[in-house]
């Protein structure tokens, strides 16, 4: 029996690895274009918290870093090449830069219900808004240790990568 990646929680504290559905992400428009009232788009995403729990607990942050999280089916609809054999295994093994796979919410043995996080899209949303939104959701999923640390490390590895101008030739 595979262990679940997630716990269901109802508390009002925000933690790294909290999965918040339907978060409102305002899209910035250049304020210098007009001094009049503007219509700004609000995109709605399912997001997962990246900010460290200790920073969130001690109210050290005004803004919380989040990344979008998708179902495999939704991702394939936008990226049909991921339906090809072997693509998701590359993501599963952590070989697809920018993407991180997390187990299904309630059925960890079903890999078609797994979720995928896009580390290339990082949103910062106000702490107060997210607390209010999380509380309003009633219950939500929270990534369990050590899946949480693995997720956090994957993001760190993505963010800290360094591109070199050249490489040492491969040994034959």
């Amino acid at each position, binding site marked *: 029996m595979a262990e679940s990646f997630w716990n269901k929680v109802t508390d009002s504290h925000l933690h790294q690895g909290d999965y918040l559905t*339907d978060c409102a*992400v*305002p899209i910035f428009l250049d*304020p210098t274009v007009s*001094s*009049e*009232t*503007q*219509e*700004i*788009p*609000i*995109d*709605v*995403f*399912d997001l997962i918290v990246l900010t460290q729990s200790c920073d969130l607990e001690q109210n*050290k942050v*005004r803004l919380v870093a989040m990344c*979008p999280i*998708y179902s495999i089916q*939704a*991702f394939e609809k*936008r*990226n049909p*090449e*991921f339906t090809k054999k072997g693509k998701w295994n590359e993501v599963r093994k952590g*070989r*697809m*830069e*920018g*993407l991180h796979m997390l187990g299904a919410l309630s059925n960890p043995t079903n890999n078609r219900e797994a979720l995928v996080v*896009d580390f*290339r*899209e990082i949103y910062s949303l106000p702490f107060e808004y997210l607390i209010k939104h999380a509380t309003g959701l009633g219950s939500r999923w929270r990534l369990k240790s050590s899946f949480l640390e693995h997720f956090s490390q994957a993001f760190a590895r993505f963010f800290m990568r360094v591109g070199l101008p050249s490489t040492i030739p*491969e040994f034959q």
Partner: protein
Amino acid sequence: MPTLTIPQQKQYRPYLPLSWDLAARPSLHGPAGQELARSEEKLLEYWKESCEQIHILREAHETMSYQAMLPNRTFTIPIRYHLRGRGEPLPYQIDDE
């Protein structure tokens, strides 16, 4: 002589599109034959390196190739910006022991 072949999925190596049967054919004799053998080896080496480069580039391209996802939905709200001036640093609490 080297011949172009289709790579086999199970045993893929970057330079597999080229296979050769150097061992099978009779060795080349004479200065011209040796010169030809040297050229053949150089060509193979060059081919292998080129294929490996293409393989690396293709891998790199494949790892980059996905579209950012669209939001679940989008709505608009009217807003008015207020310029509040340059942002100040936030208070930074130093945890001295």
